[in-house]
């Protein structure tokens, strides 16, 4: 894919008036089910009855200029730029095309003198008080106001009065700045905040020409989605800290890619100048993100630009310090250690954890290295915080569109979508508010779905399967209206039940989730599932083979068809992360490869992760930044990061989309597939893993019929919708384990370790503008549990479990269910994982004032 220039050089004034400016916004795709004929500028068109005139025209090549209309938001008809003459039988009248649904025999004139005069007039009005900031404005060069003024505006202004003045700029939040002089009051940002994000924190204040967009006093626009307002602002009124003054739009070159900060997989453009990524913008993928991004994703490039990036491989020297070495040395040492381990204690003494942050190609290269070259099945893309690979691939899948299809019922057992899968939260919000989707949520605390659920059922950790049995199997007691309502909603849904499962709580074992799934599968055989796991490419990595017992293409090792590429597979089935770390802690692992994984920070049992790393003679970390685990490694291989590698990624639906290289990796850092490839030849000179990402993809896609479309059209993931083709539906789910809960004990609270969007993660810590957004750790208790303990705001409490204790400030919070204490993962001040032991079903703790 070649770099597309951001701006066209065509002289604007000569451009035909119907040229759509390059805003990346276009009418959402529709199917014509109720065709009507309308006449636009003398041309007879067949369009969908009832769709907005502005879209109907654009779809047919007539672009009507506009400012306030955005195809993914409700029209408001405010800017008046889109006025055209519409005749519905009573004579032509000026009408805002963004508010008028087309109807049969409508006749429309978009170029009449009256229309041209309105366009001239509206632009003159907008420019009257607009400052002459273009030369220093971030939007200059990609500004709809500039572009439309060239195309439709008056040549000069008759405005000789003094322009409106405001202090420039004011900050609406930590991230977004507002220049009120530039604002044209189109209501896009405010509408987005209110309608789409559900964070109505910015508003119009004052009246008439003093109207401005602002926040309430002392209530910043702290929304996880604030960056979208910057993208959709049709002028340079809103700017985002990470991009302000970094580059002029015409200096940026652009490639489409996919955000890999979570498994939603939003489509983005990666925009760079002078080999530095400076901006991502949301791309409108109709099946995924509708052009929206969360701020964590949108500003994620900061981490990769950070000076902390690893530029070269490191090896622990004689003093025990990690010191830079040449690649040949680092790779040689790593290959040596692996070879020795194989020779001395067999291939199973080598293990690979991670890969869910790699591309499919990277994951495949490592899977092949591990399973065919080394011969170990001790591979796991997950860190004890996910679900068994067979469940991830084998549960019949749901796309986001299917999950959100109008009128359906969703049973949400997953993590907090707002914190872990932000743009999915936006899609659900739209589905509930606009499309009549009803959500029943079962969980231990109120999530981002707070105002959206039709019914929430409280269940302490471990209790969800029991609640589900009550809902489906026994008629809920009539007194409990919540349960009865939920049961009725679920009954109504019948077989069309859409279930989202995940790991909402790191302190609750996956067995509980598996049991819930099994209850559901027997009660509602037709139920369809989405597995909502956080890491971007966890599904892709599993499909590539980075899971114990699996070969690429979602088949079990025992069923793997022998091919040229996979002539051998490990004889013994290996372990997942928990088993690997236990073996390591017991001294049975000689080489542990951490492929972009950081068990010390992420594995639910922190103490086990530490012991395992300490006990393993050679830990090899393949990472772009020195995370907590890499800092303990013997060899650190600097890997290229997002934006620096080509390949594909697979989102939580099983949708394969392209990720693209836009810049060069820093220093000598290199893609993880090439690291695997280099290691392979050093371990066995007869092996060639693959010369390029594309070659690896081609090989991987040839291994399973599920990838037929990819194999046939390898370029297809580059489109905004990617290719939906996931493997592994035939996999058997693991047998449901017997889940035993500790006896109820009225003195204990049950621990929930949940995730927040902004935490102490390595990438966030390396991002200038996001690093400060993480809160400190707090224990959240239901007010009824907090009161008897004497917890006031910020009282420090000590939480003690059978495995350890932590002391941290506590707060009463009525979003937490009674009998539960919530501590968020990876926030400064306390690590609740020290209370957890791997393998325990749930974790009960005592709380006392410290």
């Amino acid at each position, binding site marked *: 894919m070649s770099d597309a220039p951001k701006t066209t050089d065509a002289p604007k004034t000569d451009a035909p008036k119907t040229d759509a400016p390059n805003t990346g916004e276009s009418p959402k795709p529709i199917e014509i089910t109720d065709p009507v004929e309308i006449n636009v500028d003398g041309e007879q068109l067949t369009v969908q009855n009832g769709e907005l005139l502005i879209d109907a025209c654009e779809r047919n090549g007539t672009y009507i200029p506009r400012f306030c209309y955005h195809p993914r938001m409700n029209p*408001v*008809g*405010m*800017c*008046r*730029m889109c*006025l055209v003459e519409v005749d519905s039988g*009573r*004579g032509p*009248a*000026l*009408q*805002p095309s963004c*508010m*008028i*649904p087309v109807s049969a025999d409508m006749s429309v004139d978009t170029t009449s003198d*009256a229309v041209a*005069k*309105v366009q*001239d*007039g*509206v632009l*003159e*009005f*907008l420019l*009257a*008080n607009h400052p002459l900031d273009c030369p220093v404005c971030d939007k200059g060069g990609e500004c709809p106001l500039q572009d439309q003024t060239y195309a439709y505006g008056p040549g000069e202004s*008759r*405005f*000789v*009065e003094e322009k409106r003045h405001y202090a420039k700029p004011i900050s609406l939040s930590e991230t977004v700045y507002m220049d009120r002089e530039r604002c*044209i*009051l189109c209501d896009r940002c405010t509408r987005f905040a209110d309608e789409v994000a559900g964070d109505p924190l910015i*508003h*119009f204040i*004052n*009246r*008439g*020409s*003093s*109207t401005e967009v602002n926040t309430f006093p002392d209530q910043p626009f702290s929304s996880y989605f604030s960056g979208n307002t910057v993208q959709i602002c049709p002028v340079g009124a809103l700017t985002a800290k990470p991009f302000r003054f970094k580059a002029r739009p015409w200096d940026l070159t652009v490639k489409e890619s996919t955000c890999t900060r979570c498994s939603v997989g939003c489509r983005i453009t990666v925009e760079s100048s002078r080999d530095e990524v400076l901006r991502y913008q949301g791309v409108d993928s109709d099946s995924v993100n509708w052009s929206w991004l969360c701020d964590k994703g949108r500003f994620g490039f900061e981490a990769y630009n950070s000076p902390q990036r690893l530029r070269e491989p490191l090896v622990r020297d004689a003093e025990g310090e990690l010191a830079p070495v040449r690649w040949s040395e680092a790779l040689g040492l790593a290959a040596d250690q692996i070879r020795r381990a194989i020779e001395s204690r067999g291939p199973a003494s080598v293990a690979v954890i991670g890969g869910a942050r790699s591309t499919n190609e990277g994951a495949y290269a490592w899977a092949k290295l591990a399973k065919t070259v080394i011969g170990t099945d001790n591979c796991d893309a997950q860190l004890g915080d996910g679900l068994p690979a067979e469940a991830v691939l084998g549960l019949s899948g749901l796309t986001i569109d299917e999950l959100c299809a109008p009128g359906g019922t969703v049973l949400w057992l997953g993590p907090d979508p707002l914190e872990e899968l932000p743009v999915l939260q936006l899609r659900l919000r739209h589905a509930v508010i606009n499309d009549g989707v009803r959500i029943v949520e079962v969980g231990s605390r109120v999530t981002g779905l707070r105002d959206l659920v039709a019914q929430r059922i409280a269940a302490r950790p471990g209790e969800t399967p029991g609640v589900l049995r009550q809902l489906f199997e026994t008629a809920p007691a009539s007194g409990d209206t919540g349960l009865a309502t939920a049961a009725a909603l679920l009954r109504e849904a019948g077989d069309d039940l859409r279930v989202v499962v995940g790991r909402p709580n790191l302190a609750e074992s996956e067995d509980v989730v598996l049991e819930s799934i099994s209850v559901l599968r027997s009660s509602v055989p037709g139920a369809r599932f989405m597995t909502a796991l956080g890491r971007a490419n966890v599904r892709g990595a599993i499909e590539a083979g980075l899971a114990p017992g699996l070969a690429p293409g979602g088949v079990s090792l025992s069923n793997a068809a022998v091919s040229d590429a996979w002539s051998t597979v490990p004889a013994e089935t290996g372990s997942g992360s928990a088993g690997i770390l236990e073996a390591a802690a017991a001294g049975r692992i000689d080489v542990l490869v951490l492929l972009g994984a950081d068990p010390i920070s992420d594995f639910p049992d922190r103490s086990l992760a530490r012991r395992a790393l300490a006990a393993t003679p050679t830990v090899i970390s393949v990472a772009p930044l020195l995370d907590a685990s890499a800092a303990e490694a013997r060899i650190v291989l600097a890997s290229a990061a997002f934006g620096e590698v080509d390949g594909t990624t697979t989102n939580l639906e099983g949708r394969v989309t392209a990720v693209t290289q836009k810049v060069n990796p820093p220093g000598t850092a290199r893609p993880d597939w090439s690291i695997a490839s280099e290691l392979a030849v050093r371990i066995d000179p007869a092996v060639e893993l693959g010369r390029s990402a594309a070659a690896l993809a081609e090989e991987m896609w040839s291994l399973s019929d599920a990838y037929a479309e990819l194999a046939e059209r390898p370029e297809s993931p580059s489109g905004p919708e990617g290719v939906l083709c996931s493997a592994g539906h035939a996999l058997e789910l693991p047998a449901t384990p017997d889940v035993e809960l500790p006896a109820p004990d009225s003195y204990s609270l049950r621990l929930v370790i949940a995730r927040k969007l902004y935490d102490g993660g390595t990438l966030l810590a390396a991002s200038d503008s996001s690093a400060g957004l993480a809160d400190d750790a707090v224990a959240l208790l239901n007010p009824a549990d907090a009161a008897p303990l004497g917890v006031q705001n910020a009282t420090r409490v000590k939480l003690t479990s059978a495995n350890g204790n932590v002391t941290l400030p506590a707060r009463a919070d009525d979003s937490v269910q009674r009998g539960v204490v919530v501590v968020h993962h990876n926030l400064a001040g306390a690590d609740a994982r020290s209370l957890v032991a791997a393998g325990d079903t749930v974790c009960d703790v005592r709380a006392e004032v410290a």
Partner: protein
Amino acid sequence: MNAIVNRLGDSTTGSGEDVPLIVSSRFTEPAGHTLEGYRNSGSYRGYEGLRSALERSPSEVGEIVKEATLLGRGGAGFPAGVKWGFCPPDVWPRYIVVNGDESEPGTYKDRVLMERDPHQLIEGCLLAAYAIGAAQVFLYVRGEMAHAQERIAAALNEAYEANLVGRNILGSDFSVDIVLTWGAGAYIVGEETALIESLEGNRGMPRLKPPFFPAAKGLYMQPTVVNNVETLSNLPWLFEHGVNAFRETGTESSPGTRLIALSGHVNNPGVFEVAQGTTTFRDLFESPRYGAGIRNGHELKMFIPGGASAPWFFSEHLDIPLEAREVGPAGSMLGSGAVVVMDETTDAVRACLRLVRFFARESCGKCTPCREGTTWEEQILTRILEGHGRPSDIDLLTDIGDNISPGPYPVAADPGSGLEAVPFPPRQTTICPLGPSSVAPITSALRRFRSEFTDKIKRRDPIPVSSEPVPVNHAGEFDSGAAHV
């Protein structure tokens, strides 16, 4: 007693013309605002109309209003009975919203109705609610009208206690609640869709029509009838005296009376109930019953026939009767019934600025042409008065006006067919008529008094322009009854 009461007294005594007082008969009654006073004084017996209406079916009640051709008194003059019929069948609940936000300069008749005869309004609400099947009425009173709010609240309490509002009214199975609510002081919430937004707790900005016609998608997106205070206040008399009696006054197309708020340079400003179609502007200004002549022997220069947004009239228009079908074709509108008289001492440019400034300050800011255009007009007029005018300003003012409301404003109706012939939607680039309203005084002044503009443009010495608003009397009672421009 204060001035206005005496003036109204004057208007009914010694009158050769027999104008029945349909809505203002209790204005002079000291206790007319109480339930007791409402039942025992005035031109009909309070709540008797309701009693008789409850014996009919709701659709009969609606028919009666239709037959009476009760035109809306809020500005647009749309027949109330027809409007009620626009509610889509079988969509429930429906609401009645009473527009008591009266804020147009010179308009102060609803205020008197609310302060002096709140029960009349309440009975009107009940009749309307009965006809359309609404179980809730929202009575929205302008924020600054504290006295009216108090009087309505007191009257509502009385009416609830007397089982005139609430459950099973007068023993029938008709139940309705009336909710009193008020604004925060914005002219724009007088526009019906902005009022609905405000009622819903949002910032008062108009919605777009289409698709948000209140009758179909109004309050909380339900069918909603918005009526002016005076419109509804006509109903009790109508139901007590009948359609024929109602139609005896006024003309065929505009039956009944209208409350006119007369202000400006007349000797006797005030609120007068006049017969539609038979009273002329000359009667209104000169009759001792009404304006009693231009002040101090001065001469009429111009007058605004129907609220600040109406194009100006001049002496040649004096014999036009106060009737929408006469005023419209002559190039203006009867609008909200506010008539403002200006004598020859009035500076047309300053008068123009005063009116334009009102609209600029009251623009809600939602749409570009009004938000930017009205302020620009104000800036140009101010500059002209400050001695920095440019010859190009006149064309500029005209063209800005054209960019806000292309073509004549309001569109003159075809004399034969009356107001219904006004094309819909109106020729405006804005969302609501507020923006175009600012254009009316400018075009009027430029057409007639162009030389006043050109003279000022030549001058270089400033004419002082005050930007201070006229102090508002919050006491709740009229002091002068006049609004001087």
